[in-house]
């Protein structure tokens, strides 16, 4: 098993042995790789500085032209398509993952950044137009355009059974939308980026006010319940949340540790992030930026974006398994 790490300032994907972090290769993939998707052992690379995505397959790199600048995130469909928003423009590229060809390009809200698939439809968040565009990727048609506010800046979208959660970074709100409607929204911590699903909750890190907001998935978004949403004061600069074995852990861009998201005790609806009896904070060699959980949940691979390194962390054991140096600015790892 390999850990693939897109290194955005070195235009390569670094391949590390998942067992011990030994470097197994570097693959030149194009300008500014940021995110990966693994589909049938093929590694799709979003090269944000290009008008194409790269695909590492069978030891070779192939390019699939999107025509529009800034491939950013990926989502896959049951039909075998890979979806990639082109965030330098206003298009969603639909790539045939088998033939490695551009199957369609669909106009969406300007500067689309993230995409999620629910019930066969793609939900694409716009950083410039404040909309979530709902696309049928099989037909290449726009099914709906949900306006979340003219100044909304939609960064992350996350699909769940009950709807798609969309994070408005500018106004610090979490929306839930379906194909037919905008169900509601709730405030979250300042400068949010992504939403992460953890069992019965959706978690949003507030990078600007050192919080993580947990929203119950059972209630309609915006409905206030007992302790819902719950705001955790986690300190530092939470860059995101990673889930392993059903537990949520907070990544920190400033402090060199990963900490469990603690449950109560709570005061005034707020909770502290202190150590729980079974989960302890794990000290790391550097602050963390992004993470990927291994398929067996045994370890998480965290990128130290500002320190050019990646670590494998055993959260249950509370230790770092290995740390490997990387080229500059490693983004979110993926397991191959």
């Amino acid at each position, binding site marked *: 098993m390999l850990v693939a790490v897109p290194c955005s300032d070195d235009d390569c994907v670094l391949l590390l042995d998942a067992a011990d972090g030994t470097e197994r290769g570097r693959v030149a993939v194009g300008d500014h790789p940021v995110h990966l998707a693994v589909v049938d052992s093929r590694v799709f690379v979003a090269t944000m500085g290009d008008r194409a995505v790269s695909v590492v397959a069978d030891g070779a790199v192939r390019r699939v032209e999107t025509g529009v600048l800034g491939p950013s995130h990926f989502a896959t469909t049951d039909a075998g398509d890979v979806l990639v928003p082109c965030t330098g423009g206003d298009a969603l590229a639909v790539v045939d993952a088998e033939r490695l060809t551009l199957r369609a390009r*669909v106009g969406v809200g*300007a500067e689309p950044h993230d995409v999620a698939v629910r019930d066969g439809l793609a939900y694409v968040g716009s950083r410039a137009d404040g909309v979530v565009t709902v696309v049928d990727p099989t037909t290449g048609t726009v099914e709906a355009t949900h306006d979340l506010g003219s100044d909304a800046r939609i960064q992350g979208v996350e699909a769940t059974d009950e709807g798609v959660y969309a994070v408005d970074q500018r106004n610090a709100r979490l929306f839930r939308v379906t194909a037919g409607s905008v169900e509601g929204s709730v405030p979250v911590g300042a400068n949010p980026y992504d939403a992460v699903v953890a069992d019965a909750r959706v978690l949003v890190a507030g990078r600007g006010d050192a919080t993580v907001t947990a929203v119950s998935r059972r209630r309609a978004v915006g409905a206030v319940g007992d302790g819902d949403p719950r705001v955790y004061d986690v300190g530092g600069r939470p860059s995101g949340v990673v889930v392993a074995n059903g537990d949520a852990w907070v990544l920190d861009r400033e402090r060199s540790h990963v900490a469990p998201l603690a449950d109560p005790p709570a005061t005034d609806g707020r909770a502290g992030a202190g150590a729980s009896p079974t989960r302890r904070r794990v000290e790391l060699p550097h602050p963390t930026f992004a993470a990927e959980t291994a398929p067996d949940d045994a370890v998480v691979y965290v990128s130290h974006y500002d320190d050019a390194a990646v670590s494998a962390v055993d959260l249950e054991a509370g230790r770092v398994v290995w740390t490997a140096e990387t080229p500059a600015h490693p983004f979110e790892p993926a397991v191959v």
Partner: protein
Amino acid sequence: MTEEGPDLTRRSLLAAAAGAGVAGTAGCSGVTTPSDVAAAASIEGNVGYVRGPAQIDLQESTFVDARPMAQYRAEHVYGARHAPIGALETQQTSGDGVVPDTEGLASALGSIGIAPDDDVVVYGSSVGSRVSRVVFALEYLGHEGEIAALNGGYDAWSGRVGVGSRSHASVDYDPAPRHDCVVSREWLADRVGRFNGDGPGLVDVRPPEAYLGARRADALVASNARHGHLPGAINVRWTGNVDGRAIAAPATLAELYFSRAGLRQSGTVVVYGQGNVDPTNTWLVLRALGADDVRLYEGGFGEWATVDADRRGRFPVETKTSTVIETSGSIGGGDDGGFSCTG
């Protein structure tokens, strides 16, 4: 209508306006005379189209005044025809998108007595986009005579002048349109993703704020359904082609376009703006500098940005780039949204 004033010259009018001493100051140190201005407008080197007054065959040339009618009436080159600029912008819709209205352009030129084999000198207040649109129209129609643009604009003219306006006998202008002067929306859509790479050059001549789609910037055109630019286009604002009333130094322009902007003289280059007037200035300059194959996107961003919503995937718009070559003016509208995945 007022008849032309056969005894008036540019210099005499200036003298009348500014005092008797003006016309007599030629040669005085530190004083610029109309003759000096005319001489300074001459172009040296292998530059097409643009000519100073001293480089023009006055006997054989038909002058076309591209300035607004009020300026033309007040004073113009003796015998000049007034260009019907509005009629020279006319377009028609084809299956591939907007294209020039060949018959409309030919009719407009014929209406002011321009025949296909006339040697034509076009002038304006400067070597601006009104002038270049007339030159473009002539070239597009396959004009057989020589075509020149007067460098320095009307202020560089020191010869005989006329005032008022009069009609000129119309002629039938039989066009032989050069379709390779233009490209359509579909032609561009077929090449999305290749511009300024292994495909044609593509130059957006609008202000940087419009090119980047800067939110709330004054330069944004409200009628555009989307803002930004065609994918891969570089931005070189057309106003940088002109220095005062004259064309900018050709060496400077060559360095701008063929070095900094990375365009190739030997390849196809497409220019576009919001509409079909301003980009003709860059079209003219690139051709004047020896570029082989320069084409105008007649429909412009105004057409591209307003395609039907269900066709936008074929006609995408970008708002991010690292290739704004000429950046006069600030990027208005505040936050441009950034372009990264680190947030």
